[in-house]
């Protein structure tokens, strides 16, 4: 019968019209600047470099705590090639105390970066993570979108704030590694001390076989 389907369709829009005043389901507008959707944990926008230190640390403290060792793996693996690293000549101790090279210059051109987080995936040192900051519009097309190392460096607390579970896992892994390295270092130190003590205590009459330290 002509017109029956049209009336059913009209009924549908009427239901939606009335519903929009009543049920939350039928009014989905989120008025952006005033209201905001709850931040989703896994969101990824642009990378940032993680440093272990206070949130408001100064330049030197940021650099000291920087985890990045300028191994340039992320620069090779980045599909659109938007990371640019210049290695430093001197070294600085990293979180375990071992002297490591650090990036003298670490630029990411976020006008080229497509936030695909492959750099995070391939980084063996948990040094680069994805930020959730997306309001980054600037007036300067080149300089404004080219983030240098200091602009990229953000503290571990910030990392904990935006990706809590992931940050917890990363910290656990780093802590466990640190413990392992310290245990090995302590064991090596004891072995060296024991050898030195044995050598100085009695003239080497007979060389005691050094007790085999259980493999760390």
């Amino acid at each position, binding site marked *: 019968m*002509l017109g*029956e389907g049209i009336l059913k369709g009209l009924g*549908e829009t009427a239901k939606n019209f009335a519903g929009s005043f009543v049920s939350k389901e039928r009014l989905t507008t989120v008025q952006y600047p005033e209201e905001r959707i709850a931040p989703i944990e896994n969101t990824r926008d642009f990378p940032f470099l993680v440093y272990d230190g206070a949130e408001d640390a100064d330049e030197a403290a940021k650099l000291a705590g920087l985890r990045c060792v300028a191994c340039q793996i992320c620069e090779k693996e980045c599909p659109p090639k938007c990371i640019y690293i210049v290695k430093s000549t001197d070294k600085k101790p990293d979180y375990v105390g071992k002297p490591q090279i650090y990036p003298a210059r670490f630029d990411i051109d976020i006008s080229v970066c497509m*936030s695909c987080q492959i750099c995070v995936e391939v980084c063996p040192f948990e040094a680069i993570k994805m930020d959730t900051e997306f309001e980054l519009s600037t007036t300067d097309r080149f300089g404004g979108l080219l983030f240098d190392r200091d602009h990229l460096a953000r503290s571990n607390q910030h990392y904990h704030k935006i990706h809590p579970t992931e940050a917890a896992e990363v910290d656990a892994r780093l802590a466990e590694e640190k413990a392992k390295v310290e245990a090995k270092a302590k064991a090596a130190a004891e072995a060296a001390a024991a050898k030195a003590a044995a050598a100085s205590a009695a003239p080497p009459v007979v060389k005691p076989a050094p007790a085999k330290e259980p493999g760390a």
Partner: protein
Amino acid sequence: MSSPGFKTYRPPVMEVSEEGDELLEVAMGPHHPSTHGVFRMDVALDGERVVKLKPVFGYLHRNHEKIAEKASYLASMPYTDRLDYFCSLTNNWAYALAVEKLAGLEVPERAEYIRVITAELTRIQNHASAIGFLMQEMGASGTPLMYAFREREKILDLFEELTGSRMMCNYMRFGGCRVELPVGWLNKVRVIVDGLPRFIDETEALLTGNEILMARSQGVGILKPDLAINAGVSGVMLRCTGVNYDIRKVDHYGIYDRFKFRVPLGDHGDIYDRYMLRVLEMRESVEILKQALKDVPAGPIMDPKSKIRGFRPKPGEAYGRIEAPKGELGFYLISDGSPNPYRYRVRPPSLINLTILEDMCLGQNVADVVLIFGSVDIVLGEVDR
């Protein structure tokens, strides 16, 4: 190599129809509200009737395959999101499937389940958007499109929670998935999947019986089964002519064999059939999701021995394909043992479904050309690559 200067634009020569009166040359696109992106159709009109139609591509061509030849296997994965930017997860899955065939990798159970769940969610939001855009071209000022986008937003939020980005998920890896499911994600999916039948009923109530929709779409843009098979048409476009060919049932890839779902077929091959098939396929996807969500096994989501960096498959070639929402999406890879693929070819369902656009539009009314083109449901990122 001399760079070609832009010659002055030569207006196309005015053709003359058999009856001798001049044809009206209309170039619909590339800047046109209903061409789903940058795409041009040179249409020769004899009054209202279409006499000749030449599709013109290439406006969005960035030679994705050349880029892939210079990059590693992993680096191409985020680029596959940009092929059919409505269904990034199915694109990822097709590429991962082809590489797994090439290198003979195994995929753990849990990853297979996650792949099916994300693929079917992608299919639902793609079909909903396709119907919305088709109605938009028919003149229903955005109402069905807004209902479709309301559901699509929920599904995209799920993707953002899982993969980190709504449309550029970059989630599959060779041998599994990248990130473990966040806590409580499956429950959220169950809630949304339970709400989907209500949305599909609402769309059917609004549109299926609508006489104007019937008048505008039944008997328009008819496609014959043998021409469809010969022209390599795939997906809903093929099944609307009555050909029973769904790659989930033919190739038995992934774990689709464990789920009971049916494949709807059309009998007339016109726009109304394509609309109805997309609605019925959404209902089937909801069935699959319900069965898949019941028993997602625990376990690793990534084949432990597969390496992320320095992935070098042994020399050889492989062609893998899946039933993407738009049709058969295939990846043809030739490896020569180096970390970069020697040849990386994407079989775009959208481009090949357009082969018979002219056959469907000849003799039709110019108002229907836009509808026929909309019912094919293409995305220019995939057509032009």
